């Protein structure tokens, strides 16, 4: 008799506890894993060789972008914040905005090398650099390119850049605009898939100027 009573009370007690637990069950938001846990798992997945350990610390814009699965899902406030932050992160070449060397720009556009370090077979050299632009863009006619970004075919021609107008204020303004996009795409397209090449130092200001020249110059193969 007492045993039954005891077991009965125990059963009720357990049911009572479990329903209480269910009430205290974390909401969808609380059930998410903590940033610290995510960070620990991420770091555990990399070789600890300092020669290869890059900046894994997210900057503020990366943190904002990581909260949304796409640019379209971003609220206006977040969009504004990233644009504001990234407009401060543009550095121009020491001699300012002036047409560079499109032949050098072409080499950088076509090079997929630079920054891909690994302790097995395929590592890049520390001095390699390039934008790997064909991964995401179509650029010269007939050359296979990706479609993650917009097509850049006949880019300068489409913007009406000619030998006659390329050194007018309008022509140079267009050059500056393209420079800014290649240097730091997020200043105009926050959280774009395009890397912030100049900001991260993957490309120097002079490199970026040469690439902008390659895209816009009337003599460049892009526009012929």
């Amino acid at each position, binding site marked *: 008799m007492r045993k039954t009573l005891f077991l009965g009370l125990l059963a009720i007690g357990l049911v009572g506890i479990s329903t209480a637990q269910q009430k205290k069950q974390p909401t969808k938001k609380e059930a998410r*894993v903590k940033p610290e846990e995510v960070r620990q798992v991420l770091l555990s997945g990399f070789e600890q060789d300092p020669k290869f350990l890059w900046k894994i610390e997210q900057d503020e814009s990366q943190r904002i972008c990581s909260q949304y699965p796409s640019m379209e899902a971003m609220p206006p406030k977040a969009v504004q914040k990233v644009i504001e932050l990234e407009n401060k992160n543009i550095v121009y070449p020491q001699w300012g905005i002036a047409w560079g060397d499109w032949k050098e720009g072409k080499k950088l556009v076509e090079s997929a090398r630079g920054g891909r370090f690994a302790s097995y077979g395929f590592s890049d050299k520390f001095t390699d650099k390039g934008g790997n632009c064909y991964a995401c863009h179509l650029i010269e006619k007939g050359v296979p390119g990706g479609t993650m970004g917009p097509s850049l075919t006949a880019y300068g021609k489409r913007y009406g850049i000619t030998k006659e107008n390329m050194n007018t204020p309008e022509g140079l303004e267009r050059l500056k605009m393209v420079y800014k996009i290649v240097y730091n795409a997020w200043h105009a397209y926050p959280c774009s898939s395009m890397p912030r090449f100049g900001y991260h130092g993957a490309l120097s200001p002079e490199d970026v100027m040469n690439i902008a020249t390659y895209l816009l110059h009337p003599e460049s193969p892009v526009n012929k």
Partner: protein
Amino acid sequence: MRKILLTSAVFGLACAGFLGYQTVKAQDQELSPEEEIRLVQEFNRMMAEGINPGEIWAEMGKEAFKKYNLDKCDFGLGPGKVEGALAQLPRYFPDAKRVMDLETRIGWCLQQYAGMTPEQVKKFATQCWGKSQCMGEYDAIVMYVSMASNGQKFSVNLNDPQVKRMYEIGKQIYYARIGPWDFNCATCHAGQKEARIRATKLWSADRPGEAGQAVSIFPKYLVRWSQPMTMHYRYAECIRQMRWPTFEPHSDLAVAISAFLYGTANGTEIKVPGIGR
């Protein structure tokens, strides 16, 4: 007969691949656009003929499985049971106190039953990384165990809180912008819009069924390197292309990504090995 056919297919491909390499520098893994197109055409041709050179690794794997005492290894369905093993991984293993995917579990079992140290396991697992035409025992073991689940559908248990946790961590990493090129897995493998990287179509975790189609064929035989690529090698190469630091196989990062990808793939039929450029 089939073995002879497969061996000659591998040999023929290796020759073709080698000739292709005359136009590509040894360390330079970038193929010219013409080369890429040629390789795509070659693998379509092989697929049409019903030849998949990747299968030869499964035969090797069966031998290596016994050699390294993996018949003692419990993949979740009992020691040595490989049929259906891949379909229910990743899962939590109380003996290791970790959620593990297939390769991580193989690595752990090699330590337990083949007397390997963690360093030896890593060397064993990465023996074919950065190479081509490499016939590695590890890749063979992964191929053998994976193929034993052919025809079954992925059924990762996302109701297990440990597995769910790794799934959530993997998902956050998938969408987190990191590193000096601001990349993440989602840069290429997310979104609704269909896109290509150079000449290669990209699958998206956000479009239903595509993640499943992508992972259900791993290990995947790659024509450009004449050898199969396991999931962890695929993670390593993606991570290298993202300009992230060098990837550690069998890490929690691997398990997290696997939990997310295989969890998303639930319901997809397993068809190993796939074949690609």
